């Protein structure tokens, strides 16, 4: 059985939590005690169960009736296992939405049929495009609330298609739903005879999980060096990590980056047992023929497929801190296990989420703004472009004084 990770996005009150509650409820994935708890606290004004309360897990969320942070929910059908990230819609909590978006195979962008494409639709679409989310479902919700639903749906669809012309989005599907009534969620209801496509769950069960994973370019970031130093394992020196992309086999020539030293793979082990090869995204331990200096943060790659090693990186940063980003600021850049001090050497332009215009040379970057920038690193780092390889093409910025993660970095 395979596993699909998906998330919901859209503006506040578009019905994200209700949709997830509905999916769980109608696919019989809600358990009796959870229902009991809902019965106790979760009645809507009209007496029906408030399914949104299934995911709004924090006290403040229930009090304010909004989602603040991502909630993860798990369910399965006979076809597939699902991990859902229910992400907040508030602009203020966009960084939490990005947390969910960075690890998802599919994003459902909800649009309130009464409001059509709004700023958050654009923001979430930009994020989906930036983060290269492989599948997008645009769900036009609350379709029960609009007269002449068929033409409303078609017109929203047209607007959205126009919007996406400017982005590199893959596999976009459209669907009209009513999360509240459960129309077109698990089953294809006859409520809208103008829609001939599958129900939402059917799409979720059948989309190809276009493996996000690159199997061509082999990358192995070293996380930890295993050196037992016991009598039995006196000379053992194993590099523990995860193959983040590609395939490695025993006997292959490799290079260690950024140092550039080359050698040969002596053995690959999983669970202490030798294997012939390891592929993404397996964890493994690699031993090398030569005793060279390798530590956490180094990258093992194949000899003929090395990464660019550089001191200057062109990036897009999604800023996630309340303190503003100003040109010249210093941070730590973490890519996998590699951490390097950096300085933001140039802020080139901000991307206006609403108009999609570029504003050149901003003096500062505020929470949730997206900026194209240049970064200078204290030491050379090995990088891929995000488009080619997600795992070695992305990083985070850490504020050394607060230790907080302040930026999502996408390498150009």
């Amino acid at each position, binding site marked *: 059985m395979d596993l699909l990770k998906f998330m919901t996005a859209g503006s506040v009150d578009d019905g994200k939590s209700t949709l997830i509650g509905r999916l769980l409820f109608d696919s019989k994935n809600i358990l009796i005690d959870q229902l009991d708890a809902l019965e106790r606290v979760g009645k809507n004004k009209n007496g029906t169960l408030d399914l949104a309360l299934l995911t709004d*897990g924090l006290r403040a969320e229930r009090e304010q009736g909004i989602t603040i942070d991502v909630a993860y929910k798990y369910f399965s059908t006979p076809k597939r296992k699902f991990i859902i990230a229910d992400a907040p819609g508030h602009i203020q909590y966009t960084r939490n939405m990005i947390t969910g978006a960075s690890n998802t195979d599919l994003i459902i962008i909800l649009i309130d049929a009464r409001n059509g494409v709004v700023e958050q639709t654009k923001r979430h679409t930009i994020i989906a495009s930036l983060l290269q989310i492989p599948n997008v479902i645009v769900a036009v919700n609350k379709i029960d609330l609009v007269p002449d639903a068929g033409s409303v749906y078609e017109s929203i669809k047209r607007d959205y298609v126009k919007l996406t012309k400017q982005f590199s989005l893959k596999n976009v599907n459209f669907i009209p739903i009513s999360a509240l009534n459960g129309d077109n969620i698990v089953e294809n209801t006859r409520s809208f005879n103008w829609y001939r496509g599958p129900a939402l769950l059917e799409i979720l069960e059948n989309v190809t999980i276009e493996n996000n994973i690159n199997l061509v370019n082999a990358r192995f970031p070293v996380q930890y060096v*295993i050196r037992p130093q016991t009598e039995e394992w006196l000379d053992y020196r194993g590099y523990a990590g995860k193959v983040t992309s590609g395939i490695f086999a025993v006997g292959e020539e490799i290079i260690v980056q950024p140092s550039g030293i080359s050698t040969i793979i002596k053995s690959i082990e999983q669970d202490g047992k030798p294997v012939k090869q390891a592929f993404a995204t397996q964890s493994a331990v690699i031993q090398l023929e030569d005793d060279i200096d390798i530590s956490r943060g180094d990258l093992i790659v194949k000899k003929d497929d090395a990464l660019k090693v550089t001191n200057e990186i062109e990036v897009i940063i999604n800023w996630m801190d309340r303190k503003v980003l100003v040109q010249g600021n210093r941070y730590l850049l973490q890519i996998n296990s590699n951490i390097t001090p950096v300085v933001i050497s140039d802020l080139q332009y901000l991307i206006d989420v609403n108009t999609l215009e570029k504003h050149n040379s901003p003096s500062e970057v505020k929470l949730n703004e997206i900026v194209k920038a240049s970064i200078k690193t204290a030491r050379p780092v090995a990088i891929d472009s995000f488009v080619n390889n997600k795992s070695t093409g992305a990083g*985070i910025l850490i504020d050394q004084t607060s230790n907080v993660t302040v930026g999502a970095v996408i390498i150009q």
Partner: protein
Amino acid sequence: MTTFSTDYLSQLESESIHILREVAGQFERPALLFSGGKDSLVLVHLALKAFRPGKLPFPLVHIDTGHNFPEALSFRDKRVEEIGETLIVRNVEDTIIKQNLTEPKGKFASRNALQTFTLLETIQEFEFDACIGGARRDEEKARAKERIFSVRDEFGQWDPKLQRPELWNIYNGRINKGENVRVFPISNWTELDVWNYIKRESIALPEIYFAHQRSLIEYQNQLIAVSPFIQIDDDDVILSKKVRYRTVGDMTCTAAVASDAETIDDIIRDILGSRTSERGETRIDDKVSEAAMEDRKKNGYF
């Protein structure tokens, strides 16, 4: 033909191993919280996979409430012996005496809340900067919100409104003095995943997870084992039933479920047919309020 795909259990396993190695790589003094319960046994199994043939780069730590199932404790010790790793045990009893704490009273007086005091004391004693725990997001809805690397302040408090973003598989374990991180490598596993993995890997468990005959009282539809730690009243009827445990916490707050499941396959079948959640069925302590878990976590609970 070779296919380069793995099933979801192997994916979950690889993710957890990656997280454990990040802990070893990023922290100076991590610890793994180990009770002898199924989730912590799975954690230890994953840790062995992550670091063998080396030693585990952290000790196992048990915060013993003194109300544990004896079967779980003896299993804990046996397992530690087998793998030849270090186990540190700290007793809630000692903290109660040292810090002059008041023991809760009542029928099922639970030391669950007091456990936090001992945990914080232990973190301080050994200067642990990261504690690895076996909590899963499917257990409870406050847990469903928590990051894999969850930063806690000096008082162990979780601030759910100010969690760090956690992007891709990049974990930021940098902390300020006094802070520590709780790490949850099996966050994305469900109860069923854990059982399927236990089966696939033939992980041994304490016998109380399997159906056995036991003396119990029934209280508000829950079956509580007769033990010196609970108060038996005159109107309690002592029953003997065939039961098993879905989770193993304190004897005061873990309920048994009536079951004939004697093997792992039986248990998996039971769970597939079950319509109640693990915590809902077996944890008395979460019933208190809608936000019981969130409140405990904010106060330093795991």
